[in-house]
């Protein structure tokens, strides 16, 4: 299961009350949970999928929020990233029984059927909590709507980036004098760089998450200007451009330039233990690598995706807050929920610094403090280069297109499938998804 591992504390720490309270609640066992409702504080339940090291940053922010808001009891829970989380969200909301607030990928907004499963947010509520539509990048803000209703509050932009081990890269001479990674152009140049690094590590050139192949595929496919459009039972994609992207995976794995299998945890571990000199993974691992640097030493920095086909486009998405549908809202809970969301946005400098994400809240990203932040500044270009997933109900982070093609690409990295076979299977799966009746609209 492609669940990235999580550091300690990524889980809700004060999620639940003690057993004595629970035992006392036995009498009320009929209705709700044994925990909660006994403290007299307003309880806000938050669900998230931040099982990576960004989850630890969120927990740290939650602790600070809790310290500043003694009247609010924040109960945050991290679920397995991807399908386990989204399934739980939808199942919970279908019974009016999900959390008060949840983090989702903006690319998934339409797939969670906002009209029936989410509660809209009014602009008045936002302004009452000090937020303004102008505080968000327009391109992202527009995606927060379904119909005329606002359903999401964007938190950040995140994307695949390229981390490099400076010690290793210096050894083989692929660093600029200022210590940044040499810029390469085209696939061959980059593979040469990987070969050099592989010499030094003795194992891999780069590490990557072989289960997250969709991200790499989409980045490279979009670098080549590949388009994927969906019509009624039909779709269009550029087979040649898709094939050349899949071939990169196969070639790297075949030559041993990258692992043939690595889940989120192993992918990052390869970089930490020096098995690989680079790692192509999301900016969210920054916290993990920083922690490793402090504990055992790891001189690293990060930059944008390498230019394979004439530019440095990358795949990415936005985290955002949504309010799952409630049978009825307790006004106090609703108030506390929005206060929480607004507080998190105003304090999202830490989110960018620790989580590696680029905050969506402009007052933060436009601040001089943030602009000077390293290594974030080195990859700040991703915000312009980020490519969101194609627009169709089964697309988006951890959606079926992502999962099903990812499983195929994992086979490619495992050298169990040739690029031609993989492309044929990808096309077959896309067609099968298209043939499904759309259960959302």
């Amino acid at each position: 299961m492609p669940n990235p591992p999580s550091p300690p504390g990524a889980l809700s720490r004060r999620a639940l009350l003690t057993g004595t309270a629970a035992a006392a609640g036995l009498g009320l066992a009929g209705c709700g949970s044994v925990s909660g409702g006994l403290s007299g504080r307003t309880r806000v339940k938050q669900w998230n999928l931040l099982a990576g090291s960004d989850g630890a940053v969120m927990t740290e922010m939650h602790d600070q929020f809790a310290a500043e808001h003694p009247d609010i009891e924040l109960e945050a829970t991290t679920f397995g990233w991807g399908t386990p989380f989204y399934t739980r969200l939808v199942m919970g909301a279908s019974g009016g029984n999900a959390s008060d607030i949840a983090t989702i990928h903006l690319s998934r907004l339409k797939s969670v059927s906002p009209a029936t499963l989410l509660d809209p947010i009014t602009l008045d509520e936002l302004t009452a909590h000090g937020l303004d539509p102008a505080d968000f990048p327009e391109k992202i803000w527009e995606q927060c709507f379904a119909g005329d209703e606002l359903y999401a509050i964007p938190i950040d932009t995140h994307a695949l980036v390229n981390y490099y081990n400076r010690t290793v890269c210096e050894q083989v001479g692929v660093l600029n004098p200022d210590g940044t990674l040499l810029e390469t152009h085209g696939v061959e140049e980059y593979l040469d760089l990987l070969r050099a690094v592989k010499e030094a590590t003795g194992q891999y050139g780069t590490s990557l998450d072989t289960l997250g192949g969709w991200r790499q595929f989409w980045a490279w496919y979009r670098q080549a200007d590949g388009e994927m459009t969906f019509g009624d039972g039909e779709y269009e994609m550029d087979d040649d451009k898709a094939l050349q992207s899949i071939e990169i995976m196969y070639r790297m794995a075949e030559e041993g330039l990258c692992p043939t299998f690595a889940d989120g945890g192993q992918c990052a571990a390869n970089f930490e233990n020096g098995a690989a000199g680079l790692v192509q993974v999301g900016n969210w691992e920054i916290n993990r690598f920083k922690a490793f640097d402090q504990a055992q030493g790891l001189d690293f920095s990060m930059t944008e995706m390498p230019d394979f086909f004439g530019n440095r486009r990358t795949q990415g998405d936005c985290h955002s807050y949504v309010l799952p549908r409630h049978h009825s809202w307790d006004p106090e809970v609703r108030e506390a929920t929005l206060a929480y969301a607004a507080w998190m946005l105003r304090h999202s400098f830490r989110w960018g610094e620790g989580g590696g994400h680029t905050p969506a809240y402009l007052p933060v990203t436009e601040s001089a403090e943030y602009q000077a932040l390293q290594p974030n500044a080195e990859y700040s270009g991703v915000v312009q280069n980020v490519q969101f997933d194609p627009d169709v109900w089964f697309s988006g982070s951890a959606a079926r297109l992502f999962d099903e093609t990812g499983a195929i690409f994992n086979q490619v990295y495992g050298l169990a499938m040739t690029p031609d076979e993989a492309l044929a299977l990808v096309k077959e799966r896309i067609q099968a998804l298209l043939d499904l009746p759309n259960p959302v609209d």
Partner: protein
Amino acid sequence: MAAVLDKPRTVAPGRRAAKRRFKRPTVGAVVVYVAAAALAVLWLLPLLWALSTSLKPETEASLGQDIHWIPQDWSLEGYRTLFERGDHLTWMINSTIVSTIVTVLTLVLCVLAAYGFSRFDFPAKNVIFGAIIAGLMVPGQALIIPLFDLVNDLRLSGTYWGLALPQVVAPVMVFILKRFFDAIPRDYEEAAKLDGAGHLRVLVSVIVPLSGPIMAAVGIFTFIGSWNNFLWPLLVATDPSMMTLPVGLGVVSGGYGLFYAQNMAAAVLGALPLLVVFLIFQKQIVNGVAGVGLK
């Protein structure tokens, strides 16, 4: 506990004991004992490995370390973290609540129904009994979709009732209890009735006391079945505060990630309650399983 374990446990101890004579152990017997003991230890290894890992500090437990069974550096770190987080305890309490509701309701409903079927004749009796017996063949797992929808519509999802009630329907228990009641002579009841006891009194004061072992077996198996049920609570226990132990461990533990000592501490604590139940009720459980094959 020792007292329970020391008791002879063969199905017909008297008969066997009478036949057994003391002999010098043969080579064959020694081989059998050694082989059996070795297999038993092998069978316990996974549980012991979990226990061993749980007692190591994280650094010693993590992958890439030497495999060794005795911790070099004994540590309860994994357990402590678990208790600090607190959700494990909540899940255990939830499991206890849900399994208790299920067990009590199952016993009450099934005993009532079995008594009704055993002792009375009433309109449509055969139709109702036939329908319930047919229910033996309905696989609950194939009903998850409509059942989930039903529980949502009843606004029971995410509540203890939503977790427990659908698990209460156990036609097989009615069947088993009815067969047992059928075999109880009516003389006792007649005596009680002459004393002026009503039907319910008769059931509670005559039938139930006579049915101790069977009710214990039904109760224990219902409890274990409900405690270990995974699929249904996975669907309806939406929030972690409502999850049962198997679901909480399975769903939320995705976040434990690379923390193996803590992970195994959770596993050990997760296994413990029913292992204790098993050791206490070993006799009833063993005989209960045996009953399936012997009936």
